[in-house]
């Protein structure tokens, strides 16, 4: 009887030996990147934001096919036409199709935002990691440099750089990175300084791990979520900054359509009142794209840091409508 029940039990559930169980557990059923991707896909807000961004990027890439107009093709006879079936978002004073200009503008604006944020994050992260881990004189020198850069009003600094480097899309990217790296630098530096004192980092030193292994394998992943969140939110920030700079005529040369250059059409109150489609279209494009970016940024934070609470949609909308302080 007893042997019978034993057989039944073992045929139902073969019990692995501890050795098998150990090998099984260490076989990595799923890489952590995989797990992050999976939980990102299940985050509704993040997916919404990502969808919006992807759609806008696709629209920018296939701008010619979608609109059927060239952004530079002028038609004085069709000047300042309101939206119609021919021109979905109307035409500007030179008779150019606004929809085509918004989509082509998206190319430059998104490129500037992503490139500037990427360069800035890279610069800030590398310098911040060095300063935070090494401390001492290196940290002192980098801190003083960042303080000097920060004492200049940002706009003046940007104008100085622009006058030194000249206008141009890539110069704008460079100017933004050079004038904005301090916030990421300080963020990463303080993360590294506190991580350095964590017991697990101390443990890696007691294990004799190499410095690159400690910094990049153990410290950086633990500092990554604020960096990634700052990176995405900075994309939004630089898109807006580009718009502002171009509005002042200091950004991308006016011959290239960008959202900022399009917006500068609203400089006159006549345009503001009578030709609303000229500025509403690029403004809406900026708002939608920036909101999408922020959704993705918040979703990333939820995914990357399992300990933080999910951001309610309410809060994301409020932050985007009332403006979010990037530096905090």
């Amino acid at each position, binding site marked *: 009887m007893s042997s019978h029940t034993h057989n039944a039990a073992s045929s139902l559930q073969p019990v692995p030996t*501890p*050795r098998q*169980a*150990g090998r099984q*557990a*260490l076989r990595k059923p799923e890489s952590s990147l995989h797990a992050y991707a999976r939980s990102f896909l299940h985050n509704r807000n993040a997916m919404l934001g990502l969808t919006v961004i992807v759609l806008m990027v696709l629209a920018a890439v296939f701008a010619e096919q979608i609109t059927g107009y060239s952004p530079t093709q002028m038609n004085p006879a069709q000047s300042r036409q309101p939206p119609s079936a021919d021109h979905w978002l109307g035409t500007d004073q030179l008779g150019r199709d606004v929809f085509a200009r918004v989509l082509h503008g998206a190319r430059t604006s998104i490129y500037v935002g992503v490139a500037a944020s990427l360069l800035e994050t890279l610069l800030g992260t590398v310098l911040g990691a060095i300063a935070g881990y090494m401390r001492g004189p290196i940290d002192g020198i980098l801190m003083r440099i960042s303080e000097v850069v920060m004492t200049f009003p940002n706009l003046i600094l940007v104008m100085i750089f622009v006058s030194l480097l000249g206008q141009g899309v890539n110069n704008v990217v460079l100017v933004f990175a050079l004038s904005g790296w301090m916030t990421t630098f300080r963020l990463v530096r303080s993360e590294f300084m506190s991580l350095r004192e964590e017991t*697990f980092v101390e*443990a890696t030193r*007691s294990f*004799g791990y190499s410095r690159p292994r400690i910094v990049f394998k153990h410290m950086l992943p633990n500092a990554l979520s604020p960096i990634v969140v700052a990176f995405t939110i900075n994309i939004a920030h630089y898109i807006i900054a580009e718009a502002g700079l171009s509005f002042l005529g200091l950004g991308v040369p006016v011959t290239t359509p960008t959202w900022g250059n399009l917006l500068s059409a609203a400089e006159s109150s006549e345009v503001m009142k009578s030709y609303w489609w000229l500025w509403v279209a690029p403004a809406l494009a900026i708002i939608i794209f920036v909101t999408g970016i922020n959704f993705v940024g918040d979703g990333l934070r939820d995914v990357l840091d399992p300990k933080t609470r999910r951001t309610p949609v309410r809060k994301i909308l409020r932050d985007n409508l009332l403006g979010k302080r990037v530096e905090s």
Partner: protein
Amino acid sequence: MTGTEAIASLYRASKLTKYFPVRRGVLRRHVGDVKAVDGVDLEIGRGETVAVLGESGCGKTTLGRVLARLERPTSGVLEYDLGQGLEDVTRTSGSDEFAFRQRVQMIFQDPYTSFNPRQRVGDAIAELLSVHGMDSSEQRADRITEVCEMVNIRPEYLQRYPHEFSGGQRQRLSIARGLSVRPELIVADEIVSALDVSIQAQVVNILRTVQGETRVSILFISHDVGVAQYISRRTMVMYLGKVVEVLNSATLHERAEHPYTQALISAVPTMDETARRERIVLRGDVPSPINKPSGCPFHTRCSYVMEVCRVEEPLLRAARDADHLHQVACHLPEPPAMSPLRRQ
């Protein structure tokens, strides 16, 4: 230090000091030192368990960190047996340092922060093994399973993240991680003080069993007289960065000669009415480790203080009893009698 005959010496520290400079003002002027460890001699034999006992701030944690080479000593010499007898490892680097880092494993006080929160615990142990030369992943998995069995962690749990474990489990995993590379010495810094009493017993028992099986040496740093006595062969009592008494753990209660050790022992609560002693209540606070009292560091609170205690610092010497392990740093010609057991 005597008392380790018949046991091969593994690690020896001589005249070890660790001062932390105190700086004040805009110019960061050096105004003094926190003398956390102030001239400690210590020897650990192979397979020996030594407890370091003392209250908060006595320098026992700093001593452990210096011995694990997480801090550089201000002065003194560290000698470790890396295969050819004791050799100086105070400032060693490169391959000798790497060998030392495998042979000496530190286990930290706080089990909640001693694992990388983004790394599965199994991977954390596997990484240590692979850095220290175990290349085959199957071998690593088998070794990890082995050490997990030693500390009663189910191998299935290895793919979890640290935050999914309780404090006791994490401390056992820390022990498993340290053990995985077959160390010769484990520096256990207050490893049970963050845990519940019932879990403390579990962790200490595991460490004791492991010690019996692997003959690893253990430096057990603790403020708990009972735990220190239970796990160790020798107990070193520290006060203000100095060793005031070294005793055989088995006879710690009966043979303690230093007034400070006696006070520590009398403070241990006991359920056994017949073993209850009169509490010795120390007056005043521990003096600042920046401005230490002259002479004997304990003279400001000692009830047997003599004139010589204020002037001359007592050195560790053999105690009055016959126990060759027993040393004490006290000027008293006769050890004060422990208060008699209180009979009901």
